Structure formats: C-alpha cells, structure tokens
C-alpha cells in the first residue's frame, strides 16, 4: 500500500495516528526525505525517539522495517551480504568435474539487512541505527548506497534498488561523521520535547496513566532536564516513570513518591543524588 502525503502537516497527522507526535521541523524533514528520495540523518541525545521515528514510519507507510544496528568493526559480510560457504564448498565438490559450476551467483548469496532493503526497494524502511558506532571504513562503504541506492558486489556486479527505500540514519554523536556522508543526507536534529508535547506523548504512549498525573510528570521532567544532569532522561524514561508511578498507585505526584520511583527516570547515581537533593522544588506539593 502506497501512501502519498500532500504536505508536511498531513504527514504529521498521519504519524499521530500511529502514535508518534512529530513537531513541525521533523515532519518537514521526513516529508522531504520521502519526496526527494534522500536518506534522512537524525542526530540527537539518547532517548529522544530517533529510532522510534523509523518504526512509526514503517507502520504508517505499511512498509517492512529493516534495521541495521551498527557497532565497531561491522563490515560488508554483516551488513550487506555473505556467501553461503558450506553450500558453495559442497556443490563445488559434488558437481560434475567436466561442467563448470559457478558458485558465485545470487543463489549462494546470504542477504544481510542492506541487500534486503535494496532488493525490496520502496516496500521497506531501512534504519541504519547508531551509525556513529561504526568506524570510518564502514561509513565510506555506505556512501555508494546512500547516493545511488546501489551496492557493488565484486563477484556479481552492481545491485541497484528498483525503487529507492526510505533510509533513516541515526547518530548519538559519539564520533564526528564525515562531511561526505552528511552531504548525501537530509539532516534533522531531534531535541527533547517541551512539556506540552511530552504530555501528549504520555497520553498516546501510556494511555492508562491519568491525565493529571501525566501532566505533572511532564512538567517535573522538564525541570529535571534543566538541572544539567550527566544523562538527562529521554522520552522513553518519562514514559517508564509515569508507568511506574501509576503501577505504585499514585494518583498525583508527590516528592516522596517521586523519590521512591526515581530509578525509572534517572539512571546515574550522581544524577539521582542531585535530583533527590532538590526534589521538593522539582516536584512541588501543590500543583
């Protein structure tokens, strides 16, 4: 099923139906990535929902999500393709010695995420997650894929996507990405949501949490992020915290309950201490 969206606003409305609340800038970025067939590079702090965007898009567009989690040392045989060595070896030895068995053809190829995405084309959303964790060599290897939606396999030739897949790259900025990669992509910085949007996210993602509690959680999280913690909580943690408070039977947010369930929100002992010291100003007793 192929959807077309006339404007960024329509796209944002569409994303809202699958439970992702995108702001104006993000919907513009995604809209253009779809229309211009360009990869979309998303950067931002941990836990702001970069990966979720790709999932929501796959959901919305009715496409399969092909995910490639990057790590240091990832190479072509894990990302693109590998040969089925056992079969190649067996067939080579079993084949009639007079015929020339070619064991470097498509049927001996094991597709990995990138090749799968190229072969299925616009029926997939390709998520290249945490590209900054891969090394420079892998980044260089991606350049052909990102500009032409094609890869070259030496033994077979060039594999070109019949129709370009939607490619989403995410980065946490643990390393500077090369300009060559940035230039091939559209770029968007994903920031933490403001209190109002976070409240709406809570209502969508944790509907069982009462609205009054959700609103106070969203406000408290805003104040906690402003403290300048080492690891400021992401949206995922906000949802966890709201759920934790709900499970423990809190109808509203009090400093005591906040302190007791803080482990769901702040996951560093120094940060927890900092928050605990100021819990009464962060979570005022009167709304």
């Amino acid at each position, binding site marked *: 099923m192929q959807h077309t969206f*006339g*404007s*960024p606003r329509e796209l944002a409305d569409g994303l809202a139906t699958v439970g992702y609340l995108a702001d*104006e*800038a993000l919907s*513009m*970025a995604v*809209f*253009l990535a779809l*229309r*211009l067939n*360009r990869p979309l*590079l998303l*950067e931002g702090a941990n836990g702001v929902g970069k990966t979720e965007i790709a999932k929501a898009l796959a959901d919305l567009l009715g496409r399969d999500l092909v995910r490639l989690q990057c*790590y*240091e*040392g990832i*190479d072509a*045989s894990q990302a693109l393709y590998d*040969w089925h*060595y056992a079969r*190649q*070896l067996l067939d*080579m*030895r079993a084949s009639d010695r007079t015929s020339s068995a070619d*064991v470097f053809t498509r049927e001996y190829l094991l597709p990995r995420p990138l090749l799968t995405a190229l072969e299925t084309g616009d029926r997939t959303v390709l998520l290249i997650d945490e590209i900054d964790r891969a*090394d420079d*060599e892998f980044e260089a290897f991606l350049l052909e894929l990102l500009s032409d939606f094609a890869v070259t396999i030496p033994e077979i030739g060039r594999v070109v996507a019949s129709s370009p897949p939607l490619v989403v790259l995410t980065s*946490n*900025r*643990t*390393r*500077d990405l090369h*300009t060559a990669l*940035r*230039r*091939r*992509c*559209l*770029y*968007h*910085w994903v920031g933490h949501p403001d209190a109002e949007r976070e409240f709406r996210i809570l209502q969508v993602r944790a509907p069982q949490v009462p609205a009054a509690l959700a609103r106070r959680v969203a406000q408290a999280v805003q104040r906690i992020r402003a403290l*300048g913690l*080492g690891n400021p909580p992401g949206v995922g943690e906000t949802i966890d915290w709201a759920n934790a408070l709900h499970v423990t039977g809190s109808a509203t947010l009090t400093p005591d309950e906040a302190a007791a369930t803080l482990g769901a929100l702040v996951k560093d002992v*120094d940060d927890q201490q900092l928050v605990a010291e100021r819990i009464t100003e962060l979570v005022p007793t009167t709304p």
Partner: protein
Amino acid sequence: MTTPFEISARLCAGFADQLRRHGVETSPEQTTALYAALHQLDRVRLRDLYLAGRVTMVGAREQFTAYDAAFRAYFLGADGTGATAVAVSRPVAVAESRSPEPTAGTPSARPAEDADDEVDHARLTPSDIQVLKEKSFAAMDADERRRAAALVRTLDADLPRRRSRRRVRAHRGRHLDTRRSLRAALRTDGEPIRLARRRNPTRERPITFVVDVSGSMAPYALAVLRFAHALAHAGHRVEVFTVGVRATRITEQLRRTCVDAALSRIAAAVRDWDGGTRLGTSLATVLDRYGGHRAVRGAVVVVCSDGLDRDDPAILATAMQHLHRIAHRVMWLNPLKGDPRYRPLQRGMAAALPHVDVFLPGHNLTSLEQLCAALAAVRRRSA
C-alpha cells in the same frame, strides 16, 4: 501567507552563496536538493522555506546559528526583496581586524619567520639546544620562541593503543577468513589446502588536549598548541579544546598545515585569550558536550592549566572525577610545577589532583619530552 520570493534556481544558488559567506559549506547537490524540495511544497510559507533550507543545506547542529544568520541576511535583508543580500564580512576578516598589534600571548601569522625555522635549527649547537630545552616558555624572547617552535615540531609520541573490533586480513591470526580460503580452494579443486586468516589489529587511542588560555597561561598554551599541531601532522588523532572563560573546540582550526596559519585561525575562534579562568565550568561544558564522544571516552586526555580557578573548586573536582571515569588516562600539565618549590596547594589544583594519573610541569621543552615518555609508558602498561 506565501513567501514573496519566486522559487528560482538563482534564488537557491544565491542563498547557498550567502551560507558559504557565513561559514556553512554547502555542495551543489545540496543546493539542487533545496531547489527540488521547494518544488515539492504547495504554498511555500517563509517558515517552510526556513525549515526546508535547514534540512537540505545544513549537515550539523553546530551550523544552525550560522544558518539562521544567513537566512535572515538573505531573505529578510534590508531591502526585503532577497535579490541582494546584506553585505556580510567574512568571519576570518573580522578576526584579522581584531588584533592589529599582536601581543606576546596572542598568536599571529608570521609566515616569513616560519620559513627560517629549519635554517635556524641547523645553526644551533647541541649545547644551545640543551639550554633552550631547559628554558621556561615564559622566559623566552621572540627569537628563542621561534627556535623552540622548530624543536617542538620534531617531537613525536608513542600513543597507547587498543584492540580494534574490525578484522583485517593477516598471515597469522585467530580468525578464519572463510571467503579468502574458499577462493583459494577453487584453484585446488575444492580442497582447502591453505587456510586464510584474519586478526584484530590495534588502533591508536586519540589524544585530547584541554588547554587553558587564560592570561597567565598564554606562553605555555601556545607551546602546547604547537605540540598538538605537531602530533596531528605526524598522523595521530588529536583533538583540542581550549578552556578559559568558555570552552571552544579548535580541532578543525588546527588542521591547517602551516602551524602559524593554524594558530591565527585558533586566535580567531577562541574569544577568551588572556581572559580570566572559569576552569571548572568550562571543563564541565566540554564533558557535557563531548562526554560520549571518542575525543574523550577512552582517549588520553591532557589538561594543560595552572589550576588557578575562579570557580568553586567542587565544580572542578566533579568534572575531573567524571573525566577520569570516562577517559583512558588523564594527564595534567601545570607550568607552575616547573619551579621545584611548587606545591599543588591552590584549591582548584588540589581538588583536581586525586583524579589525575600523570602530573607534569610542561613549562619547557624537556618537560614536553617527559610527556612523550609518559605516553609511551602508558602504552607499555596497557599493552
């Protein structure tokens, strides 16, 4: 409301030009993307124009401010037509006009002297070099500083390494290279006679300099920056931050081949030369922005400061503790330590010291050599 601008190739190209003048490098394909993008939008509001431009023309968050300025100048310029942009002077030009009279502490381009360095070096006798090596950077006159700069360039460090996760082809190694083995087996009738191997190579850890550029540190900071430049051009992965009133990342500026050109670029980028010191706060800023970055996590971090800090020492202590946890090794160069009577008693230095692995003076050439030796020692220990 739609924009009063006609979406034309000229408009896009003009905007790209404006961006370049604001220091945002754009490629023709990005300009093409902007042009195509604007034709995908029905009624282009100014806000759409802004967002579409940012998504296509900018590749990093650091450039958003420059983009905003370029956008204002081009689309909201004085005459409002957008056809002619407000004249914007290049940031480099501004920097050059800032310091017409270079002071001792402020670096400036001196290409003429730079050419003489090698000749000078040849004229120095071994005993001259020894005297120069022992002399504090602060006590040197212009001539000696130039000679010392030539000597700094000859320094090289043996940085600690770590095992890479990537596997490369090798004659011997613990991993089997199935692909290459099979290729070889084809020639021998499908019989794998020689097994090809892969192994994990080692990679050099990055070295990161955090240089205090407050007034009292100026001569030493310059020498350390020269040293960092020498290492960068010897092929090491070097990152440099300056701290003082605020933190600035100057790695890009240091990439210039000519050290004096690099230093004058740094002078333009760093605004707090000879300013006061808020060491704790600016170090915390570096960690906040780059704590997860490879420039800090798992790197060898060399802080160069006299430890005179106007901040609460607790801030510096917390920052150093954090740094020590995430970095591979933390070294501290304190020029005051060059005096044998020196004791690290200032509150800032005392707070930082428990979180420092190697504490060196770094006030003259000999102590920079000691730094190289210390780096090699770290490598031997971690190997």
